[in-house]
């Protein structure tokens, strides 16, 4: 018979399948009601009444061990539900674990959702991490100091054995207070990679830090009871954002302030202190002609712009800026030359009859400018020429070469004097503002960087000793398979 006979009575319709639901059964030890939440996944459950451990892998429900140590007063109760990142989780199990020394303890909650499976929620003294099994191979876990996962570098944080002290609820593995596991973890805050292995399984999991406030909000618990004073292995550095934000800003501001300052040096409004035209004669050679006296109210750059009337000659001015009170002296030299003539190619000229020099950062005070001239033509002068100097105009803007008057008649043959206009200018640069700005620009980033580094130092000070899934880097390598991560053929 290949096909049902359509004329016969309608075939029986299959009964509706029951929905998935929790299973309640009597504890084989004490008779108390036990609620099994992750039916079909859980294989071990602890009776909440008598703390017996019951095997629920099959429906015979046998007591594995009577009166295992039970958790009392865990922060989140069994059966509580909370939404983290949009997925509702039910707390179905928890275990209190510790490292080899027993000094570092933490709690691992097992969270269940029938659609999304399991997560571990690890509470390390107030630092909370939500962990998901990865189902993929992450090369280097357990072997390398640094492993790369999804483009991030994770640094090895700790390695070692973890011991289970107390348990509660139900588990998809044979949980027991005799559990010891070998693990390693790597951090790249707020993320963390965990590796665990035994002979049959290698499990790599990925965790993300969850703020205690978010845990409190998710499970309806008072936030104050959740946070702790210690810095977590994968706790985000609270100064990381500020550091990331302020360091580029500070660098930009430093560069900007410096640029403005130096632009200021160049572009500051140069006000003229004095302009005078001097008539230098051979008699002035090696003598100091007194220039203007002026007062600076703040640190300034003093610029001296000179223009000489030269005819196939050179002029060199040794300039000294002398503080009239302290005798502090700044010196510089400016040279000018101008040559011209005719040759077969026509007329030519070379040299520059003007010169500009700057005395940088001259402090406040009263100064006089001394000018010692020398010119090519002076060498031809007889040594005994009477000093003649001076002349005079104090003009402003515009180069005016006044008719030249001599103090005494020159000895013949006269060597023509050299006329030069010397302009003294100053531009005030306020360096103190700049340095205050520098200080401010360095202080805040410096403070943030210091806090950032201090936080990282504290985090890593705890590394190697203990963690949520690994502990105590005690290298008593038992050379069995279970401690070998690189089981190559």
């Amino acid at each position, binding site marked *: 018979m290949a096909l049902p006979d359509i004329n016969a009575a309608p075939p029986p319709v299959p009964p509706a399948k029951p*929905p998935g639901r929790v299973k309640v059964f009597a504890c084989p030890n004490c008779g108390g009601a036990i609620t099994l939440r992750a039916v079909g996944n859980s294989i071990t459950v602890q009776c909440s009444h008598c703390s017996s451990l019951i095997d629920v892998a099959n429906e015979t429900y046998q007591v594995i061990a009577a009166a295992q140590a039970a958790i009392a007063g865990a922060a989140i109760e069994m059966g509580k539900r909370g939404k983290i990142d949009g997925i509702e989780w039910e707390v179905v199990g928890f275990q209190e674990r510790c490292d080899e020394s027993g000094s570092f303890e933490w709690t691992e909650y097992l969270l269940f959702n029938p659609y999304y499976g399991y997560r571990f929620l690890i509470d390390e003294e107030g630092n909370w991490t939500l962990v998901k*099994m990865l*189902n993929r191979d992450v*090369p280097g876990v357990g072997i390398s100091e640094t492993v790369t996962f999804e483009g991030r570098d994770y640094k090895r944080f700790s390695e070692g054995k973890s011991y289970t002290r107390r348990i509660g609820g139900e588990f998809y593995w044979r949980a027991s207070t005799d559990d010891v596991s070998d693990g390693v973890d790597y951090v790249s805050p707020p993320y963390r990679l965990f590796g665990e292995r035994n002979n049959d399984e290698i*499990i790599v999991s990925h965790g993300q830090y969850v703020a205690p406030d978010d845990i409190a909000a998710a499970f309806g618990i008072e936030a104050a009871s959740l946070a702790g004073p210690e810095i977590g292995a994968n706790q985000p550095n609270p100064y990381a954002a500020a550091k990331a934000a302020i360091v580029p800003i500070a660098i930009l501001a430093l560069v900007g302030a410096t640029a403005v300052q130096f632009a200021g040096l160049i572009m500051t409004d140069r006000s003229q202190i004095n302009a005078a035209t001097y008539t230098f004669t051979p008699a002035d050679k090696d003598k100091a002609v007194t220039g203007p006296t002026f007062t600076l109210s703040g640190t300034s750059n003093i610029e001296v712009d000179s223009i000489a009337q030269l005819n196939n000659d050179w002029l060199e001015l040794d300039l000294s800026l002398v503080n009239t009170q302290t005798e502090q002296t700044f010196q510089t030299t400016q040279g000018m030359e101008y040559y011209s003539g005719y040759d077969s190619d026509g007329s030519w000229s070379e040299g520059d009859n003007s010169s500009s020099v700057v005395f940088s950062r001259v402090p406040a005070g009263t100064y006089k400018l001394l000018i010692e001239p020398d010119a090519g033509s002076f060498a031809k002068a007889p040594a005994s020429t009477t000093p003649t100097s001076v002349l005079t105009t104090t003009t402003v803007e515009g180069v005016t070469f006044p008719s030249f008057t001599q103090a005494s008649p020159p000895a013949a043959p006269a060597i023509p004097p050299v006329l030069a206009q010397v302009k003294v200018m100053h531009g005030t640069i306020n360096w103190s503002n700049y340095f205050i700005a520098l200080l401010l620009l360095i202080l805040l980033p410096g403070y943030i960087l210091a806090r950032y580094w201090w936080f990282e130092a504290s985090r890593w000070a705890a590394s190697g000793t203990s963690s949520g899934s690994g502990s105590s880097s005690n290298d008593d390598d038992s050379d069995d398979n279970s401690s070998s*991560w690189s089981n190559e053929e």
Partner: protein
Amino acid sequence: MKRFACPSCGAEVTFKSAASVYSVCPYCESMLVRDDVDVKSIGKMATLPDDMSPLQVGTEGQLDGTHFGVIGRLKVGWRDGLWNEWHILLDSGERGWIGEAQGSFSVSFEKDGLDEQDRGYIAGRIGTPGSSEGLSAGFRISVEGKELRAVDIKEATCLGSEGELPFRAPKGRRTVAIDFTGQDGDFATVEVENEVFRLYSGRYVEFDDFRFSNLRPLEGW
């Protein structure tokens, strides 16, 4: 699709896939084996253990844009737990498996040709059939040009089945199941049943990515 009347109870039994040779009557739970023309009962399937799986025979979903239906299930147990292998039939006619263990979902398709060297490595370490004692996790095999690492080795026992399957899956069928993962979420499993090696490969898929419909109701969720 082929329809048969259950030889035990008369209820309608369908074989949606031409490749299915085995089905469990949804009404009387008789295990039915079919040939081209007929179907016969080889006994009664025991009731499957309860679970909280959101899937059921009849659930539909998408895989890379191709619609599929769940047509059968294998419930597998090992020393320390259970998992589900859901048999799926894609609209393309391809048949595959969704492995569901502790809320992780893998999708795989049967492939020919486990690499001879890899097969030798595994065969050499399985002494008595069904025993995985000689194997330990961490070794690597090559599947379609990718290197995958053994991460999970289990001695598996079939606890029961429902719907239609491409092979007979009576309770008590024993295999060694070795799961492999790659760096990009690749997944493969090698199933060793006596001397027979079967290679399935695919990848892990997140629940939401299946865009499931006709899920099984779960009380309280």
